[in-house]
């Protein structure tokens, strides 16, 4: 198996996505890899993208600090698109991720909806491994 150099984590600021980030930091510490937090910018969010990016940066800083993971190995990647497509592209340049980590539910995702779920869509379409971190890991 090829070494995990870069782990991409879906990150929308929701509790589930924070749980996924924490899991990715733990994993990255063990296998000595970088972590890229990937945020997808939708049609509506674009209007306040600067504000959103600033908030996300702050959250990333806080999560990194709390976990004790090396700040220098964490990046925030903000890209246009829906979360699923943006994460599917994480395997390509410039990120070249080897693994995708997501929370079980993204922000605004409806609990009853299976086909709309980013994690299931990723599992179906991704050509690199996908880890879905269960909701129980979310603790705010």
């Amino acid at each position, binding site marked *: 198996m090829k070494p995990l150099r870069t782990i991409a984590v879906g990150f929308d600021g929701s509790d589930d996505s924070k749980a996924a980030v924490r899991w990715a930091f733990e994993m990255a510490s063990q296998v000595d890899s970088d972590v890229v937090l990937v945020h997808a910018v*939708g049609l509506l969010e674009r209007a306040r993208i600067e504000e959103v990016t600033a908030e996300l940066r702050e959250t990333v800083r806080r999560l990194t600090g709390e976990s004790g993971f090396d700040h220098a190995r964490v990046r925030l990647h903000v890209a246009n*698109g829906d*979360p699923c*497509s943006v994460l599917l592209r994480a395997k390509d340049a410039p990120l070249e991720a080897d693994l995708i980590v997501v929370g079980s539910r993204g922000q605004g995702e409806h609990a009853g909806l299976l*086909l709309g779920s980013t994690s299931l869509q990723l599992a179906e379409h991704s050509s690199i491994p996908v880890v879905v971190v269960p909701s129980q890991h979310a603790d705010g």
Partner: protein
Amino acid sequence: MLVINGPTDDSGHQDPGHPERPDRVTAVMAGIADLHLGSDLVVAPEYSATRAELTRVHEGGYLDELDMFCYEGGGDLDEDTYATYKSWSIARFAAGAGISAVDTLRQRNDGVAFVVTRPPGHHALRDRAMGFCLLNNIAVTAAKLTSEGERVLIIDWDVHHGNGTQSIFWNDPNVLYVSTHQWPLFPGSGTPREIGGLDAMGLTLNIPLPPGATGDVVRQAIDEAATPVIEKFGPTWVLVSAGFDAHRDDPMADLKLTSGDFAELGRMAFGFAPRPGRLALFLEGGYDLAALQGSVAATLSSMLGGEYQPESPSSGGPGSEMVFRARAERVLALRQAEEVPTDQDRVI
């Protein structure tokens, strides 16, 4: 002659504060009224797409789930996309409207159709709603036409890439998908290297444009990059994903088109139709109501041989270089695709 679809009550598909709202259809209808068409305006019967028509482009499981989601009261499908209790019914009328409009064009063997529907459709994937779209309206009509042996050109001049339409027809040799769109922008797909699947190599054509691009650049993109491919393909029908969010006043993007530019694009689309009665436009985006009204009127007027043009065409923006590069990248991608041993690639 202009054919429009019969009015569907779409007021049940709305979410307070959301830009994809019923007022958009009101603005479009005001634009049509500005043309004073009189008896040249024909209304096609209201029609709800059947399951068989929808499953040509959508997975049955997705349709069931969307139906159930709405039945249970609806909600947010993702950060951008909502559905209400009434959306399932409204979306099926939106998906059927094109079929009805095409039937009317065929009966009369004349005219141009404008399918005034919402929710829009070009982001909707086979198995997923996204980007304000639930069902892929233009794809439902295109798939019906190809099932009858037609060859369909889809021109998508909405400011966003029509990722849903592209992926639905990715491997279909009877559909040529041509899109101009701002780059980078949602949904993030639509590079010139996306050229279609093995059975439809070269039948996806993407021309991304930089923020600030004006109408002359879009015209150049169609003229230089798309026209030769369209002529070689030889469509028997032309469908247009007519979004008007590339207008300079639209809040969703940064292209600088005017209503006069849409008139020019309308003229070009008209020129690609093999004969009268073989061209239908579908409303996609367009969120500034005044820009929408003026742009719809200008587009339809030019197609019908009129002169209504509230703003002159724009020029001088960036993007010429990007169009040139897109052509080069596409040629490279086509060459590389040819070098892949086909039988090896077909092994499943």
